[in-house]
């Protein structure tokens, strides 16, 4: 397998405040790799380092064969950055933005014009072509941002929180656009604080917390790390809840809802046995449901473990 990004031991600190604490990363060519983490986990810092905007204190990285530290210009030739804050000129129109960026990529004038036309169609911006970007909706701005990134197909596309602040419909649209890019085989490094986004788009996910990668794998692998199915039992009173907590060794408890979640393999036999045990112990049970672990569960269990 070939890798578009390989990074080892990336470290960045501001004074005593460590933002990145030795990050190792390998992004396979043609894949979508997601960095998932809460605000302040170091996602944007990592992206800024890999996009040559920020120098690491130590560590090395290679992007499509170009060394980050010794050949930043080579890196810039092969990457495109779509930042957390839309990287477009709000005073210019959509068309002017695209043409400006195409010229900065040194496309010949006619090629640039044609490319701009194609991108306006591809990213559904034809009607808005002569409008100032400042009047665009959030979703349109991000689409323009992505279109600019695709003027010349980059070896690596950074999408830094591409849907933060967007309404659900615009988010769906941006996801659709990103999927098209994935189908075209673009390698993408995606950062997000939305677990659903990583689940929907990414081939591999690294969970970043406090400047370190605390888990990495496919969405399925990450989910399996916290076990299989859970049986969620809502108890009828506080006394039963207290006994359930001590006797059933639940994965998670919620004192307010009087609920406990007990790991199970999901087989009927085990569930029947568990229900029989509740009966035997004389616990007052209000409701029983099975729960599939989501990436949220993975995320919370990983970040809680660190916080504890």
């Amino acid at each position: 397998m070939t890798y578009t990004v390989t990074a080892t031991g990336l470290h960045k600190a501001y004074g005593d405040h460590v933002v990145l604490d030795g990050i190792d990363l390998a992004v396979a060519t043609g894949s979508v790799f997601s960095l998932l983490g809460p605000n302040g986990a170091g996602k944007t810092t990592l992206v800024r380092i890999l996009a040559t905007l920020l120098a690491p204190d130590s560590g090395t990285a290679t992007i499509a064969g170009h060394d980050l530290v010794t050949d930043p210009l080579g890196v810039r030739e092969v990457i495109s950055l779509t930042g957390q804050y839309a990287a477009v000129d709000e005073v210019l129109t959509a068309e002017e933005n695209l043409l400006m960026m195409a010229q900065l990529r040194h496309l010949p004038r006619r090629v640039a014009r044609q490319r701009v036309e194609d991108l306006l169609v591809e990213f559904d911006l034809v009607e808005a072509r002569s409008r100032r970007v400042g009047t665009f909706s959030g979703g349109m701005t991000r689409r323009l941002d992505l279109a600019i990134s695709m003027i010349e197909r980059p070896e690596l596309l950074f999408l830094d929180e591409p849907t933060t602040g967007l309404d659900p419909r615009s988010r769906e649209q941006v996801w659709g656009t990103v999927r098209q890019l994935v189908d075209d085989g673009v390698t993408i490094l995606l950062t997000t604080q939305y677990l659903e986004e990583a689940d929907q788009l990414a081939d591999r996910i690294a969970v970043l917390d406090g400047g370190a990668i605390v888990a990495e794998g496919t969405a399925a692998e990450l989910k399996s790390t916290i076990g299989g199915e859970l049986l969620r039992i809502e108890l009828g009173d506080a006394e039963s809840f207290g006994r359930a907590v001590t006797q059933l060794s639940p994965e998670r408890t919620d004192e307010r809802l009087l609920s406990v979640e007990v790991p199970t393999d999901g087989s009927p036999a085990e569930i029947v046995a568990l229900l029989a045990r509740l009966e035997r112990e004389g616990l007052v049970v209000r409701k029983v449901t099975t729960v599939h672990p989501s990436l949220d569960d993975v995320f919370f269990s990983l970040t809680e473990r660190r916080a504890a």
Partner: protein
Amino acid sequence: MTISTAVLDSRVMVTRSVRRSFRDPEAFFTALMLPVILMLLFVYVFGGAMNTGGDYVNYVVPGLLLLCAGFGAGTTSVSVAQDMSNGIVDRFRSMPIHGSSVMVGHIAASVVRNLIATALVIGVALLVGWRPNASPMDWIASIGVVLLFVLAISWLAATAGLLLGSPEAANGFSMILMFLPYVSTAFVPADTMPSWMRGFAEHQPLTPVIETLRSLWMGTPIDNQAWIAAAWCLGLLVVSIPASAWLFGRRTSR
């Protein structure tokens, strides 16, 4: 990265910045109104009480011109800072383009705006009775002086915009540029000021530029003011250009 791509990149950036300048009608209108209002204010309101020997309009034109240039440079400072606080600069920085081209764009737009303001100052001045006795050579020289000064103050302002990074802070800096002319020989001769202030007024960079222009237009004594003016302007350029290149190119710590 070659010289020709640097020129190409700069041309794209100049188009961008000039376009942006004319897309903000309010700011543009303000920039055009300022010279007219100030001229009328200084000539007709304050002018009657000023004693500078002869018509006050003949004294005040160079100072007003620099005041307007200061205002124009302040605009440049703010627009550079706006760029820096916007996502677009991250895109520019992460592209294989010549870093200085973004600055060149801002400076070119600044010079264009300032020359329009300068033309307006001169036009209005002539209308309200300014009668320079300059030869064609003097005029050419004076345009050269204005151009050099506008370039210098634009680079200085752009550098300040990079350094300050936020439009609010850049606005504060442009206030300084706006008030600097008042403590110079722009509006009154320095020898009317208290001695501690006179020292500053006589040695700050605007005074030699003003005295040079006044001499070229009105034939007042020049001494070595032209050399001092040139030294100030070139000095500002020599410091500002590399400083702005460094400030723009450094990998920020945001």
